[in-house]
């Protein structure tokens, strides 16, 4: 009975929508634009957020970075205080490794852009990372081919390299790179591994377009005293050790290594991933809220458009309502009939909005390097909002129609 009633209501509603194509199209345009705006903003924000979160996750949440400059998102950033700080050194890594009890692994890394060649193929401005042995214990990445550096290779500074997937594709388009030689700044080294493709990263250059070499080899052509090389030490906490405990210990060791007096200000920064996460949380909250306000009010305006058209629809079909009621149609049948029409109108508008969003994400794939995907949560949200706006904007006209007196309704023109 209910299904029959629903089917009949849908048929009535569909006929009404088809009967007035232009009017239906114009009235659902508001909802289409509203759903399109809000779901597109949510899709972009969600995709960016996922990308940054996965990038942050690959850096590790229990990792502390010893650097010259602190990470900050605040307005007050006294950069002049940090200008004269010394850069972290490889020797400091050795001291930290010697005295630290709370860390599972400590590594050093620096990087500069250089040209990499193999035969006639060359790639310019590739990030060459000079790393210490335990780097792979802190930064998570997988190798598709080959192996990681051995302790002997890093300690003695062997001329070996691990290359990113894009570097591999660029230098070795039709051959296996393992065991082949590449030239970095004129220095020949042998490829021993290829990093698995990880896609674009929002936090600096992705591993795909990098080459990693042992620090003791890299120092031959990388300028270790250059600020551009951004040298830093990264430390990962042992299981059960909090970042605060590790940070306190690292601070103590670094102060003694740099011979800082108790009253002296720190001349290094201890940066944590949580600082980045908090900064990004703030940023995404602002973007999300802006999208929500813009989209929310455009949907609301679309809802008013549907309500308006429903009032017109009821007025136009008043005598039909009168005939239906005189033939025995109940109030709830009339109510459901008009409510279905407004929900259907809104749903079609929402579906077109979602389709437009999907098309934008598909077309944007080539233009934007980040993977933007319309998630099932956002599709569900789009349809939910469409149904709700249909119910809210259609209820008053539908209820008004259901309350009409059949005699007066038949008499109306």
């Amino acid at each position, binding site marked *: 009975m209910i299904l029959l009633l629903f089917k009949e209501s849908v048929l009535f509603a569909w006929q009404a929508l088809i009967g007035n194509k232009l009017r239906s199209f114009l009235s659902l345009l508001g909802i289409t634009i509203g759903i399109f705006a809000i779901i597109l903003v949510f899709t972009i924000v969600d995709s960016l957020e996922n990308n940054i979160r996965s990038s942050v996750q690959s850096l590790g949440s229990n990792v502390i970075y010893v650097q010259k400059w602190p990470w900050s998102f605040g307005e007050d950033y006294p950069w002049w205080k940090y200008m004269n700080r010394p850069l972290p050194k490889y020797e400091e890594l050795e001291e930290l490794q010697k005295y630290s009890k709370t860390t599972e692994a400590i590594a050093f890394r620096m990087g500069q852009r250089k040209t990499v060649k193999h035969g006639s193929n060359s790639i310019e401005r590739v990030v060459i990372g000079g790393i210490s042995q335990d780097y792979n214990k802190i930064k998570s990445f997988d190798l598709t081919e080959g192996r990681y550096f051995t302790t002997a290779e890093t300690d003695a500074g062997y001329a070996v390299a691990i290359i990113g997937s894009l570097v591999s594709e660029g230098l070795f388009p039709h051959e296996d790179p393992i065991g082949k030689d590449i030239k970095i700044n004129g220095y020949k080294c042998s490829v021993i591994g290829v990093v698995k493709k990880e896609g674009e990263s929002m936090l600096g250059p992705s591993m795909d377009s990098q080459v990693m070499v042992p620090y003791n080899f890299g120092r031959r052509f990388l300028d270790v005293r250059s600020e551009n090389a951004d040298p830093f030490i990264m430390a990962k906490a042992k299981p059960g050790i909090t970042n605060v405990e590790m940070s306190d210990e690292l601070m103590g060791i670094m102060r003694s290594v740099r011979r800082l007096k108790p009253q002296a200000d720190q001349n290094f920064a201890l940066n944590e991933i949580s600082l980045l996460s908090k900064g990004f949380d703030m940023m995404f909250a602002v973007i999300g809220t802006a999208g929500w*306000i813009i989209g929310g009010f455009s949907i609301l305006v679309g809802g008013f458009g549907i309500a308006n058209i429903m009032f017109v629809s009821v007025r136009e079909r008043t005598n039909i309502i009168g005939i239906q009621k005189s033939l025995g149609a109940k109030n709830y049948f009339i109510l459901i009939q008009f409510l279905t029409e407004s929900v259907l109108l809104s749903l079609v508008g929402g579906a077109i909005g979602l389709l437009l969003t999907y098309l934008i994400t598909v077309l944007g794939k080539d233009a934007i390097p980040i993977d933007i995907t319309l998630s099932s949560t956002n599709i569900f949200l789009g349809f939910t909002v469409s149904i709700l706006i249909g119910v809210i904007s259609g209820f008053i006209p539908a209820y008004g129609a259901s309350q009409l007196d059949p005699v007066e309704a038949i008499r109306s023109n």
Partner: protein
Amino acid sequence: MRPKVISVICIIGFILVILSFPQVFSPGIKKIGMFTPAIYGGIIAFQFISFVGLWHFKQWGAMGFAMAFFCKIFFNILINETGVLFYTYICISLFSFIFVLRYFRQMSPNF
């Protein structure tokens, strides 16, 4: 004939429902779970329908108003949204209840 106080309650209710509608897809609500916006939206729509009933001076409107009030309170507690606005909402709703209950017998029991 609808008393003026009920009209005032309904007008305030309509405005509040319309203004709280964009909250359905607010990042805060969305973050809690996939179905949270749908549930919250359902409550908002139900509240709106109740106000329509109340505007037409129907008993089902008053009953819906009470049910939507409890649903909203339960939902807000569930998602831990109990700020100043929440308590203001409770106070205004309880104040409105006094008048709704006062006129309840005079309302039409029909749909």
